[in-house]
């Protein structure tokens, strides 16, 4: 049976409008389908679009919806900078990060008030906090699956490939089919598998 005393902490991050919250809900629904306890915390700024967004998903017996600092087993991010932002705060030593490499520049960078770190700087930063960092061009894989918006499913596939969660591919697909129409489910399943296979091939 399910062992709820083992707690797995995941963060999904991105920019408002990319689907991080939706992804976290898919994870939580899939956890429930498999009979686990689950808590989900959504954090979003005031902006509907364009702000930093992250969601904590905690599988197992927990009470607080948000994990502590240095407690995340994995961070998956639909945008590189947002992955770094939450990764630095929440990833535990030895935790894993899966980062989509396609940046979404903040207005602060556009107007020249801040500098966007290069992908190699981001990778380096993750290594300095003893994290396993995996980069993925999820934006291209999502296009290959048939819809640029399926970035979240690519990254989600990558997370399941890490094999750190008591959640199967099938439960994720069941959760998807409870939310979406069949055509959308097919695209997202394909995106999921592309992400899954890619991460499997590099770890």
């Amino acid at each position, binding site marked *: 049976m399910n062992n709820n005393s083992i707690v797995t902490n995941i963060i999904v991050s991105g920019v408002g409008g990319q689907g991080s919250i939706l992804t976290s809900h898919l994870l939580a629904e899939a956890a429930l389908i498999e009979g686990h306890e689950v808590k989900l915390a959504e954090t979003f700024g005031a902006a509907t679009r364009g702000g930093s967004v992250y969601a904590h998903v905690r599988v197992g017996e927990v009470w607080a919806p948000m994990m502590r600092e240095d407690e995340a087993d994995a961070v998956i991010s639909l945008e590189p900078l947002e992955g770094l932002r939450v990764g630095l705060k929440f990833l535990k030593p030895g935790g894993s990060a899966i980062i989509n490499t396609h940046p979404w520049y903040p*207005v*602060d960078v*556009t107007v020249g008030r801040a500098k966007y770190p290069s992908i190699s700087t981001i990778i380096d930063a993750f290594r300095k906090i003893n994290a396993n960092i995996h980069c993925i061009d999820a934006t291209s894989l999502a296009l290959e699956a048939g819809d640029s918006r399926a970035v979240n499913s690519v990254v989600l596939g990558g997370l399941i490939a890490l094999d750190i969660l008591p959640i199967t591919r099938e439960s994720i697909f069941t959760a998807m089919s409870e939310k979406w129409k069949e055509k959308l489910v097919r695209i997202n399943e394909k995106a999921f598998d592309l992400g899954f296979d890619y991460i499997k091939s590099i770890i």
Partner: protein
Amino acid sequence: MNKVSNPPAGKKMVLLGNEAIARGAIEAGVKVVTAYPGTPSSEIVETLLECSQDLGFYAEWSVNEKVSFEVSIGASLMGVRALTALKGAGLNVIMDMLMTIPYTGTRGGFVLVVADDPGAHYSSNEQDSRFAAQWANLLCLEPESQQEAKEMTKAAFEFSERLELPVIVRSATRLSHCSGVVEIGNIEGSQMEPGFNKHYKLPFRWNVYGPPGTEGKHIWQLNQLTYIRELVDKIKFNQVEKGSSPVAIISSGMGTAYSREAVRELKQNGNLWFVKIGTPYPLPEEKLIPVLQNCKKILVVEDGDPLIETQLRVLAQQKGISVKLFGKTGEGVLQLHGELTTDKVVSALAKVLDLKLPNDDARKAVKTKLEALVPPRSSTLCAGCPHLGSYWAIKKALISGKENVPVVNGDIGCYEQAGYGVKGVVPETNELPSVRYSSKLPYDFLDTLHIMGSGISLAQGEARSGIETGQYWAVAGDSTFFHSCMPGLVNAVWNGTKITFVVMDNSWTSMTGHQVCPATGLNPRNQTTKIIPIEDVAKSLGIEFIEVVDPYDLAETGEAMKRASAFDGPSVVIARRECVLQVLRREGKQQPKTSVDNDRCTGCKTCLQLGCPAITFNDKKAGIDGLLCVNCGMCAQICPVKAIVEEKA
């Protein structure tokens, strides 16, 4: 149809705290539900609206919180169960009625849900609304989980009927906007027979002045408080677990969730007394006296201000018990600002227990250094947001000259982002009486920003200060106009005060999730209804200068702003264009047609001043992000060298 309208009893679902509260109301057989949207409470009534037609109860978005509260109270007086949900700031709008209704009481179960926002994720203050319960002498329940949120809401209706008073359920962002597993229960109703009786149980029951008069009704209410105190000592939501050592942790709401984590983290299970308070006001005193007597040290964990802590100090003093209380007053092991977290509670508990936490300074130092690499992501308006055009036009209409200091007063809605500033950029301050600042982006444009409806009245005071070197502007959205700007507008007309009021009418209550409002053309049950035109309202209130413009047309909008501010009296400009997100949702996103001609672009950055997130700037040239651009055409209008071009189809 909504997922919580009709799931079978016993089913387990992942529900948002707000959905769990909605389900609790459904299981209690609620008949009338009202609210004005306010983050983080909006999904409660949003969910109930989606269930109302299937389940046969009435739900509405009301024009503001005061109206909403009174509509629901009216239903309760008729003997049916009713609920109002609001955010902390919304509670302030109902305070007049909230302080008076306990004198006459309620009949059908009445539940007021208040969702506070410790940490001010979405709010203009961090107020602790539980104090309203203490002020008004009402029972306050505070759930620690989504499951309990559902159960407490359901029970609150029954408590309300038993006590004949409103019951407050206090939520917080981390409950309302977090999800957990909730087991669905049966729908049960009230046994009460609806109807209206003027002298129900007491003379002139629903009239605070009717004999025996206001003081007599106050005496009735204070007597009810003794029943509330009896009730809270009996209910399951207050629990005391004894521990083996004379130390207790007493917590409520989300504080209880963090306390459970902290006790596990510090391996104190069974060692500490664990007291879970479900009723922060009033406290279950009979249950708590043995805790005070048996413990030498007590840590109080509550999100917000020290309500439980101060009541415990009073109780200990009354009973002559000497116990060391730790919390937010006195030694202050927890802060009075910000939200609680497990980390904060772990370190507070460690202090109380004199435990040393593992030292992770080296890792912290590495992280701090790396954090410097992470640029902020300031909040922006959306690509193609009509408000960008309105702000551009107002900026162009401001009088020039250093000695002139116009004041632009903000209000609450998406357009308040013009007051958020750019993250990490804190302006230098000085002590000069009057300074004019230039503002390149729309995001540091607003000069004042507080609460709904405040801008239009602040502008009048500024205009009446006798300082004539400025123009006095106020902005508000359509939903905010109907919520609380109309009295301010009447005041300006009546007193003849010269202000310029810009209504950014985008047809929706966008910021809280695109709820309908009187400018939408739909009622809250999604039926077509007439739009209440803001220009007609303004005209009927006596405004003599009214212009309606399209904020995508920057030149036209700018000219209208100039004419309005030159008008000798209160003037109104209505910048009308539907919220671009709603247009995209309905019509889908078109292929981007706008691009920058690299040969023409001089890299002057004028376009960046529009503040549109679709405009990029790399290698000294502007660009357009095709994923974001909605072809609104505003940037093309402001480019001084016509380098931004729209491809003709």
